[in-house]
């Protein structure tokens, strides 16, 4: 048996016996992301669906000045409530989302056919208040348009006079691509799962081994350092990959419990998605575990390694954030950038397409190259004298 295989087997066996590692890498890590995602998603769905078909309770000040208006709004779904003493305070203290104020001058303006005003008291910095105000504004607009058209007709004019232009929306989004927008954070969760899967082994096999004073005896064996590194890194990578596979399966299962059709969206986390995601992620996992090993080799203790790696964990979120803030058109070269390439590829899959063969090849090559570089640097660190010497 090659010594690298010996090291690999020993690390796998030893870490499988560690409950904390198994729980974190193979259970908590892969489950956390899909469950978190499922909860987030369902909260969002219920918030969005709540908007349209539910009655909108609105306290109305001065309802007596405009009974016709209040009746029309009630038909559109508003439920008039008794007015609070101070509408501003009621909204600020979140007692009410929006308050409709009809001034006492309303009837006289209305009767003379002039523009009558009402006030909406709301707080745009609160989402529920803003949404309620938007719904109410839409109802008021519809009412105003209907009455306007009636008045035009009464004066013998066509309502079209007041409507010289109409813009018609032709949204090219498909149910799939709409789903993809909602799922744009998914690639980060996938990377995170792989990261968490490898993290504990990377620390345990390097910083942990040194802290427990077993690295020096290990390196006194007639085995070149690169062999030791290869064995430890392979074990770390295995855990990361298993964690990743479990995570992707978790997402596939979670996808079944997400009622996206209610939002007129489609999301397909099936075998096709599964296979290509794993392919794109493979070189990235190699790179991540290499970086984790490298960072752990630098750290003086388990705790220090854990701190560094927790910081490193935030790097994978950057492409997700970047693409959210600056939506760029994807170019083939971008696939060569590790993390960005995977992000673009997974997004493409979510939108219902498949990344081109060249894009996939560029992505794999770019990430592999980065992984090879990271491995070379790790090797240098591993060969240094200070690696083995504990404190």
């Amino acid at each position, binding site marked *: *048996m090659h*010594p690298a295989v*010996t*090291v690999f087997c*020993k690390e796998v*066996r*030893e*870490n499988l*016996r*560690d409950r904390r590692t198994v729980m974190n890498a193979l259970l908590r890590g892969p489950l956390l992301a899909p469950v978190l995602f499922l909860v987030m998603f369902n909260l969002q769905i219920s918030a969005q669906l709540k908007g349209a078909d539910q009655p909108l309770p609105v306290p109305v000040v001065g309802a007596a000045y405009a009974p016709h208006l209040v009746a029309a709004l009630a038909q559109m779904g508003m439920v008039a409530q008794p007015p609070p003493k101070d509408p501003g305070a009621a909204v600020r203290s979140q007692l009410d989302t929006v308050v409709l104020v009809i001034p006492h001058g309303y009837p006289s303006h209305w009767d003379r056919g002039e523009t009558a005003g009402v006030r909406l008291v709301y707080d745009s910095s609160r989402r529920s208040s803003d949404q309620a105000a938007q719904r109410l504004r839409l109802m008021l607009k519809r009412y105003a348009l209907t009455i306007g058209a009636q008045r035009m007709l009464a004066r013998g004019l066509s309502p079209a006079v007041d409507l010289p232009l109409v813009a018609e929306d032709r949204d090219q989004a498909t149910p799939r691509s709409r789903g993809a927008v909602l799922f744009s954070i998914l690639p980060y969760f996938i990377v995170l799962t792989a990261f968490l899967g490898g993290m504990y082994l990377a620390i345990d096999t390097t910083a942990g*081994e040194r802290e*427990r*004073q*077993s*690295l*020096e*005896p*290990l*390196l*006194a*064996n*007639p*085995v*070149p350092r690169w062999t030791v590194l290869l064995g430890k890194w392979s074990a770390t990578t295995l855990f990361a990959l298993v964690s990743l596979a479990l995570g992707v399966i978790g997402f596939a299962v979670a996808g079944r419990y997400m009622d996206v059709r209610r939002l007129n969206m489609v999301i397909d986390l099936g075998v096709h998605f599964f296979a290509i995601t794993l392919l794109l992620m493979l070189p990235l996992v190699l790179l991540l575990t290499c970086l984790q090993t490298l960072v752990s080799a630098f750290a003086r203790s388990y705790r220090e390694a854990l701190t560094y790696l927790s910081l490193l964990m935030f790097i994978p979120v950057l492409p997700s954030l970047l693409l959210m803030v600056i939506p760029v058109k994807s170019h083939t070269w971008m696939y060569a950038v590790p993390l960005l390439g995977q992000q673009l590829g997974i997004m493409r899959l979510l939108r219902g397409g498949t990344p081109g063969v060249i894009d996939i090849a560029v992505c794999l090559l770019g990430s592999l190259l980065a992984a090879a570089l990271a491995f070379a640097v790790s090797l240098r660190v591993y060969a240094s*004298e200070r690696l*083995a*010497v*504990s404190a």
Partner: protein
Amino acid sequence: MIEVENLRKSFGAVKAVDGVSFAARDGEITGLLGPNGAGKTTTLRMLYTLMKPDQGTVRVDGIDAVADPLAVRRRLGVLPDARGLYKRLSARENIAYFGHLHQLDDETLRTRSDALIDALEMRDIADRRAEGFSQGERVKTAIARALVHDPRNLILDEPTNGLDVMATRSLREFLFRLRAEGRCVLFSSHIMQEVVALCDRVVVIARGRVVADAPPQTLRERTGAASLEDAFVEIIRQSESAAA
């Protein structure tokens, strides 16, 4: 047989080892004696090729340690100052790990581990996980795994550190057995009594230099001191006044 010639190693401005030469012969126990910080551990680390000397040569059974570190490590059994075990593995699995790294076949590995487990009287802990081992049990396991490949030469860095009287005594007897088998045993210590009780030859190191190299008896005679402890103190004092 371990031969060391004019070994030097600095860490920054600190000369940890400053021209150490000595030889540890087969069938003898050689003691590396010196106060804390004298350069014993650094010297040993260069012997088992964990560190590269800045200058000088190390030869184990005639093989140069810088030119062929792997061959040297194959001929050495090492108990370093750091002697951590894998706590989630049993004593036997700890030994087998090192045996596999030496690429022993299963049959040889089993015979060797059984022999060592018997010789070190650790049958009752052999299949227990190393978690919760006493200091003595840990040292025994660490020695067994260092000897699993049946090396001709043995390097032990302060092997009795933290051991109680009984454990020290049985370790001593075990080292005599190794000597009787014709092996070369080199160990470091800062405890005089231990060196007297064990060594055929004492190499005294202070401030990174060899200040004496002789059998314990000769050392005593040369300094005119009654005990080795007095001899040791005398030698260290002389070397310090020479340096000043």
